[in-house]
């Protein structure tokens, strides 16, 4: 059995702009039919990576293949990929259908056929009836759909999306997230999606690549990224977490900054390695002093702040060297301890993850 060919394969890709290294030695394989998210803060190199796949930037070093073909320095019009731009980049002097048919017309598809296929794509994104409109007559969400149709109509082998939902308001964004996901399953095209919104990446993608400072830090499924972050940055960037700094001890515990020892799975890290224990707020429990389960790791502190979220409360506990957030579901009848009282925060052994500092 042969290994299925990667839709996109990046090998040692480096991109420098003058003295600035925007993308630093990225190796990445994106499988055919995958919904892949490149996630990271702004300026982390995720958009540059996407633009290199699109052909809008050329890599300084490394190999970039699309379904096995080296495309490193091919111009964008010679690649089987299409892009949905962040600003949509719809041609303002063309109608919706002219915009959508543009790619086909440039590929010398006859006008009648191009229009027919464009209409089909417009129906796919539920924009039928608005073919004759101009982009400025459409709302942001509608422009987004047209941009999507304009890319999809060409049946690209890979569809690239550069923060396509960034300009939409929350409700619409969530709606489009679901639709994009459904659409991707329908058309079966590989999607590479750039976003700085970790929630968006978690909900939509099959796999996520987390980037920071030009480096690809971790690639994995949303569960892997969330449950087993590769390092401190990933743990901190994905979701909310408490990071308790410490050092690995030889007996499988971590010695925290205040000298407290907590038992955790130290994996194979050598004793003396500086690490952080990542404890998600929803994985920690709050107890009155003395009422915590005896065999669980715990720390003691003072309740400092309540943050009301509606469906939950975040209780901030001040330890003597840092603060810790604990999330409590706002179930009926729940009442949080008074501010200033002494509390104990405990967690299941498996709930805390050790990450390299």
């Amino acid at each position, binding site marked *: 059995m042969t290994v299925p060919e990667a839709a996109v394969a990046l090998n040692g890709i480096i991109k420098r702009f003058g003295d600035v290294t925007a993308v630093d030695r990225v190796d990445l394989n994106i499988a055919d039919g995958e919904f892949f998210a490149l996630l990271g803060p702004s300026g982390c190199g995720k958009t540059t990576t996407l633009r290199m796949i*699109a*052909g*809008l930037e050329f890599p300084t070093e490394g190999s970039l293949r699309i379904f096995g073909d080296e495309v490193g320095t091919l*111009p*964008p*019009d010679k690649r089987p*990929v*299409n*892009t949905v*731009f*962040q*600003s949509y*980049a*719809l*041609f*303002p*002097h063309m109608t919706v259908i002219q915009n959508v048919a*543009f*790619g086909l017309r*440039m*590929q010398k598809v006859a006008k009648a056929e191009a229009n027919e296929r464009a209409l089909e794509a417009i129906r796919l994104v539920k924009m039928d009836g608005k073919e004759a409109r101009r982009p400025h007559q459409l709302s942001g969400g509608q422009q987004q759909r047209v941009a999507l149709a*304009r*890319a999809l109509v*060409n049946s690209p082998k890979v569809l690239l999306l550069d923060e396509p939902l960034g300009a939409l308001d929350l409700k619409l964004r969530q709606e489009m997230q679901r639709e994009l996901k459904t659409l991707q399953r329908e058309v079966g095209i590989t999607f590479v999606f750039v976003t700085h919104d970790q929630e968006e990446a978690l909900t939509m993608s099959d796999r996520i690549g987390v980037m920071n400072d030009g480096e690809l830090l971790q690639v994995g499924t949303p569960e892997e990224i969330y449950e087993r972050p590769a390092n401190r940055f990933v743990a901190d960037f994905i979701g909310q977490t408490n990071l308790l700094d410490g050092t690995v001890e030889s007996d499988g515990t971590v010695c925290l900054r205040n000298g407290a020892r907590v038992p955790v799975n130290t994996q194979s890290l050598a004793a003396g390695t500086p690490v952080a224990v990542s404890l998600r707020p929803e994985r920690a429990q709050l107890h009155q002093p003395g009422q915590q389960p005896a065999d669980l790791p715990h720390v003691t502190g003072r309740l400092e702040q309540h943050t009301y979220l509606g469906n939950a409360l975040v209780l901030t506990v001040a330890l003597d060297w840092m603060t810790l957030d604990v999330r409590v579901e706002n179930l009926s009848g729940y009442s949080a301890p008074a501010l200033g009282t002494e509390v104990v925060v405990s967690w299941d052994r498996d709930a805390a993850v050790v990450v390299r500092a």
Partner: protein
Amino acid sequence: MNGVAPPPAVEASPETERAALRADAWRGFLLAAPAYVYLMVFFVVPLGIVTMYSFATRNRQGGTDLQGWNLDSYARLDEPIVRTILFRSLWLAVVTTVICLVIAYPFAYFIATRRPAVRNVMLVFVMIPFWTNFLVRNYAWRVILENDGIWNDAVDATGTDTLVDWLLGLPHWIQWAIPNWIEHLPSPLFSEVGIVLGLVYGFLPFMILPLYAAIERIDLSLIEASRDLYASGRQTLRRVLIPLSMPGIVAGSILVFVPSLGAYVTPQILGGDKETLLGSYIVVQFLTARNWPFGAALSVVLVAVMLLATRIHFRSGGRAL
């Protein structure tokens, strides 16, 4: 006490709103009044006088009788010599405009896609010639184009003169393909080639600036989108860049075409006696031939062409020139 005074109690009503709008309009008029009066006194009224003169009669003494209104001056526009001058002027204006467009477009695109700091420096370079008197710059061209001047040297050094001689020496059956102006290339002074060189030089900034303004406003990701959608560079230029910069193309073309059509200084200094253009011809009518009605009629034609050009500009969706 929150320290904020309550707004004065003025009851809002349609009358209050109307009064406010009236006051606003009056203030706006007052602000515009100086320019308005200036244009009326020094532009609209003189133009009216010129138009009036074009319907008057020239008397035997070379004066103008403001009576016996007629269209005789306009009838003369059909005379062969006048037609030749009109068409020559139109043709040279068109050629100048096209050359300016071809030179300016890539340059404007280049400026518009630089960093803002670089852009500003380059725009200053474009405008530097304006710091020198137009007349002086035209005389400078005369020095360049003179016999044994820089132009001659360059022509000799590059072998262009040999090339021209060779082209003109080609057999008769192929001569039709060689434009007449070629023979003036080695020494263009006092020929149409000299005039076009001077006009292109003089009016190029008028083409670059509106083109720059138009291209600068185009979202560059549209170009990337076009390339991403399988358009070649050339197709992107034709389908995306040119349509989107059309307001600049039209504005620049009008700004070059209109002064080229009425040009007087450049043809006077760089053109020869054989190549009379509209501007010089009008001057001759007023000063030498002392036929004010005919000179006025020619001027009215010139203004009419300009108004037509402006109208095309507005029809094509352009705004301020």
